[in-house]
């Protein structure tokens, strides 16, 4: 199937009566989840996993991706109107969004943010579409040594370049722990049952859905319960009159600044290609660039509209880049992509070269879903911002128990095994502990997903090329990049610690 044929087939499927309603529902759900502070894109995807089991691959993928695509729009609304970012990727919008609201221009900021999000997502998937013909050729060059080294590179990047970047050792511990957990179950080389503790349920390995639900959903619920009594505290003092009129002004403001949108979207897409950096990093980088390139940099922090447009374009453009690595190589660069990978496997779709070569139409279903999901999220966000914001009034004391029972129901229905409910709980506690103690959860999940692939390719590489398999040209280049990035970050860390020590002395 040629690229053009796949593009048309993907569009036809994405707008079909079977798929489109789920795209709409997914986008609206994602918007609502994004508005609720503390719940992000990975939570939205994890929560929807139990519902995709009986869906066809196209429908299931579209449902989940549409939810993920519109989360940032919801997060942008709360960031601007309540100074509370709905998701981590909207954190950079806090600098100029709330000041605009205080100046009475909240609607303008919302309109600008929604439009920037949509245009950023369009840019990201456009780049992904351009990359597809190249990636299709590149994946043919990749064999077991290359896939092994690529997985090592992804894990290193995730551990070293995590959102907080605080502690490389903790990031690596999390990544290695994830790989170790992936060895639970039958060894795919020898058939030996490893780490099953005599439990039949673990013969097939740790079930990924309960682990995801526990790690992201239960952990977030515990966090929400412990930290939050009110999700938004400023709502009652805001006047929403005139919001709608200003929104359209914001749309025009973004369209007039199309060059800034393109530049910040390019930043976002590039960041998305690199595992571990995340959309929050893209948003902050884009904000810094918007300020640097502005004619009025002093206005930033006081309600400059470019300070909203820049980060919002970037954080949605990340999707295109992130999807490229995930679908082409089966290497997820973030928690959300790891969940997407798990969903693909659940739906019977093998990510990686097989997807690129034999199911390209499914890739385009993903691309069109991101476009349509973002579009629906943008329109809904603009027209129903006012009533949607009432969701933030929900008390965590009501939200937490309700979401918990949905999560535990979801954990059970995966395989109809009660033991998986216990696994969800255990990983919920582990996920919360890791969140509080700054261990990288994305690194663990990605280690868990990649571990099987790492072992299989390691074994094959050893069999085919012997212990010097990493000397294969492409594998060697990837290894050099991995080692360079790793030691460069160690060097930076040592330097910064020396600087702090000198200052303290």
């Amino acid at each position, binding site marked *: 199937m040629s690229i053009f044929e796949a593009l048309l087939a993907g569009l036809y499927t994405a707008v079909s009566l079977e798929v489109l309603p789920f795209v709409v529902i997914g986008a609206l759900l994602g918007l609502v989840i994004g508005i609720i502070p503390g719940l992000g894109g990975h939570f939205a995807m994890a929560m929807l996993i*139990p*519902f995709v*089991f*009986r869906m066809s691959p196209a429908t299931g993928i579209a449902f989940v991706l549409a939810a993920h695509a519109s989360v940032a729009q919801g997060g942008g609304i709360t960031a601007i109107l309540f100074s509370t970012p709905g998701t981590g990727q909207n954190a950079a919008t806090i600098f100029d969004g709330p000041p605009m609201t205080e100046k009475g221009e909240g609607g303008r900021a919302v309109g600008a943010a929604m439009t920037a999000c949509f245009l950023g997502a369009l840019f990201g998937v456009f780049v992904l579409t351009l990359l597809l013909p190249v990636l299709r050729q590149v994946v043919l060059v990749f064999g077991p040594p290359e896939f092994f080294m690529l997985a090592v590179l992804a894990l290193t990047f995730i551990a070293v370049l995590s959102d907080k970047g605080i502690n490389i*050792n*903790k990031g*690596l*511990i999390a990544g*290695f*722990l994830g*790989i*170790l957990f992936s*060895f639970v179950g039958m*060894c795919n*080389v*020898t058939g*030996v049952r*490893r*780490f099953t503790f005599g439990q039949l349920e673990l013969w097939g390995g740790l079930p990924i859905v309960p682990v995801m639900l526990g790690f992201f959903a*239960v952990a977030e*619920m*515990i966090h929400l*319960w*412990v930290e939050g009594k009110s999700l938004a505290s400023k709502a009652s003092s805001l006047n929403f009159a005139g919001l709608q009129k200003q929104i359209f002004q914001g749309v025009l403001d973004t369209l007039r600044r199309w060059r800034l949108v393109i530049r910040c979207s390019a930043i976002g897409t590039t960041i998305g290609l690199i595992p571990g950096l995340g959309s929050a990093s893209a948003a902050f980088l884009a904000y810094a660039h918007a300020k640097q390139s502005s004619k009025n940099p002093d206005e930033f922090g006081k309600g400059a509209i470019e300070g909203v447009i820049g980060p919002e374009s970037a954080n949605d453009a990340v999707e295109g880049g992130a999807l490229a690595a995930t679908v082409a190589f089966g290497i997820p660069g973030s928690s959300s992509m790891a969940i997407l990978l798990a969903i693909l496997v659940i739906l019977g779709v093998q990510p990686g070269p097989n997807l690129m070569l034999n199911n390209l139409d499914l890739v385009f279903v993903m691309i069109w879903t991101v476009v349509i999901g973002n579009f629906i999220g943008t329109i809904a966000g603009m027209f129903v911002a006012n009533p949607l914001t009432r969701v933030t009034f929900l*008390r965590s*004391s*009501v939200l*937490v*128990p*309700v979401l*918990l*029972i*949905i999560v*535990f*129901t979801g954990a*059970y*229905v995966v395989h*109809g095994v*009660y033991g998986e*409910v*216990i696994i969800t*709980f255990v990983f*919920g*506690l582990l996920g*919360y*502990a890791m969140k*509080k*103690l700054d261990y990288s959860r994305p690194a663990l999940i990605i280690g868990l997903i990649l571990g099987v692939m*790492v*072992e299989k390719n*390691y*074994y094959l590489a050893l069999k085919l090329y012997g212990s010097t398999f990493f000397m294969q040209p492409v594998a060697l280049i990837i290894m050099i990049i991995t080692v360079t990035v790793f030691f460069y970050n160690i060097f930076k860390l040592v330097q910064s610690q020396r600087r702090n020590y000198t200052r303290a002395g």
Partner: protein
Amino acid sequence: MRDDSREKRRAITELLFGIFLLALLIVLFVMVMTYQPVARRAPLTVMIPLFVMLAAQLFIFYRRLKKLQSHQINDGKTEISIFKTRKLRKVLVITLFIISLMALIYLLGHVIGMAIFLIVFLRLVSRERWVLSLALGIGVPVALYLVFEKLLHIMVYPGIIHRYF
């Protein structure tokens, strides 16, 4: 002094979590040595550096704790126990409630277990009004039952009680 106490609590929590991970690693190491050589190759390749990193991390936490203890001004009062913090109490409360939810589901099944959990939690813990507690306590489980069993044809757990009826 309040900051020092918070730092110390954090250091203790980090240390405890690190010890837990190390203990888990030791258990898994003992298990892996019983497997055949090819089956244990990959786990050992991961475990050995993981062990080194965990040991290094524990050493860092221990040193930080020692440093904080040497800075702490001893005014004769009892040190603040990590178990007396409000947040940790909240974590313990929610954990106990989740365990009770799991027990209720196991015994009574999803629908009844969830309903009881929600009504009790919303009324007693969240201190919501009876109307809201009952509305959510009945509405949400019924909605989930309809979505999963009727719409998606996926059975929810019927509970041990199902055997007796």
